[in-house]
Each structure stands twice: as C-alpha cells, then as structure tokens.
C-alpha cells in the first residue's frame, strides 16, 4: 500500500456521495497530499476516474480487493 496523508471511508455510500465526500476531504488538504478512499459502490471506479480527469487531481491508484474499491487521489 502506497503512502497517503488522509483516509476517507466511503463504504456503504452510493453515488454521488463518495465523490462529494472526497471533494470535501481534498478541500482541507494541501497540494501534493494523497487521499486514500475506500468505497463499496461499483460505480465509483469510473466516477473517480472521471473526477480525476475533470478536476486535475491525479488518480494514482484504483483497485478492487474483496468486494471493496480503493483509490489514491493526489491533490493538484
């Protein structure tokens, strides 16, 4: 597991809450810091990809493990 500065547990939340919570968490972070997100919404995979592309925050990692989805977002 790569290093991260902050973690967001978005398990059990459905669209669009994981994205909205992530956006909120990023707002309190410094540029270059990494946010680790855990989600259970299968739609979040494509959503975080799209979120990263549109906001400029870099998606360092996106993976599934045991029915959960893990993302590493680096704040732009």
């Amino acid at each position: 597991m790569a290093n991260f500065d902050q973690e967001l547990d978005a398990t059990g939340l459905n669209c669009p809450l994981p994205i909205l919570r992530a956006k909120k968490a990023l707002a309190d972070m410094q540029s270059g810091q990494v946010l680790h997100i855990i989600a259970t919404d299968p739609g979040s995979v494509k959503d975080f990809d799209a979120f990263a592309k549109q906001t400029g925050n870099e998606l360092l990692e996106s993976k599934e493990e045991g029915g959960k989805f893990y993302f590493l977002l680096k704040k732009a």
Partner: protein
Amino acid sequence: MSDEKKLAIIATKGTLDWGYPPFILASTAAALGYQTQIFFTFYGLQLLRRKINVKVSPLGNPGMPMPMGMDKWFPVLGTAIPGMEAMMTAMMKAKMKKKGVASLEELRELCLEADVKMIACQMTVDLFDMNPSDFIDGIEYGGAAMFFEFAGESDITLFV
C-alpha cells in the same frame, strides 16, 4: 467572465424519484468545479420546502420496480388504492437508506454547501399562494429572464 464551466438546471417535478436528478447532478457538477444554478418552478418548488414532503407514485408508472412481484399480481388500478402511494414511498425511502443513497435533504444541503445557487420561480410561488417562509434560507426568487441570464452562458442546460 470566468472560464469556469457552468450548469443550469430547471427542476419542475415534485416527486421523490424526480427530486433526485437535480440535486445529484448539481452537487456532482459543483464537486467537479462547475458553477451551478437550479431554477425551481411549478411542482419543483416542493424541493425547496424546509421539510421536503414528496412521494413516489406507482400509479401510471409501469417502469417502477415493485417488491415481492407485486407488479405481476397487482392490476394497474390496484396502484390507485388509497394508501398505496404512502406505502410505496415508505418502501422506497427504506430501500434508499439501506443502499446508502442520500436523502433529498442531505443532497440539497451538499448543494448549498457547494454554493449551488437555487432560484424559486416567483410566478409559481404567487400562483399557488406559497409562503416563502416555508422555504429554506439562502434561495433567491426570480423569473424566466433571470434564468436565461445564467443559462445563456452555461455549457450545459437541463430540464428535469
């Protein structure tokens, strides 16, 4: 004029199911950096009440999934039985909660936090003798021209 993208939405429906698209799209767009505005008109104004009291109706809604195969043995007219609407609304809300779908109030709050501008149609407020004190704080009142002022320079405009 900024180079920020803009999204303008017109919300015209006052049911539980139709209340979701405006708030989901607006909150998500705001998270993506869009400057967003929702114009609430006619039944859409129900979504601006302090306590949102909207229902979902199985009546005339053949696409609505019914629990326990009810759609198979319930004739269309059965959906008009008194109490059916309240029951389906309660069931839908319970299902949404279980699946981690936000409530309309929660999504609306997230919209307001993200500076989504909400405008109540003044004409509808007058038409239905609605009381502005029943609506949430932080909204504006305006007309069609006010909507176009923003919509005219928007990248996306949606009618819900």
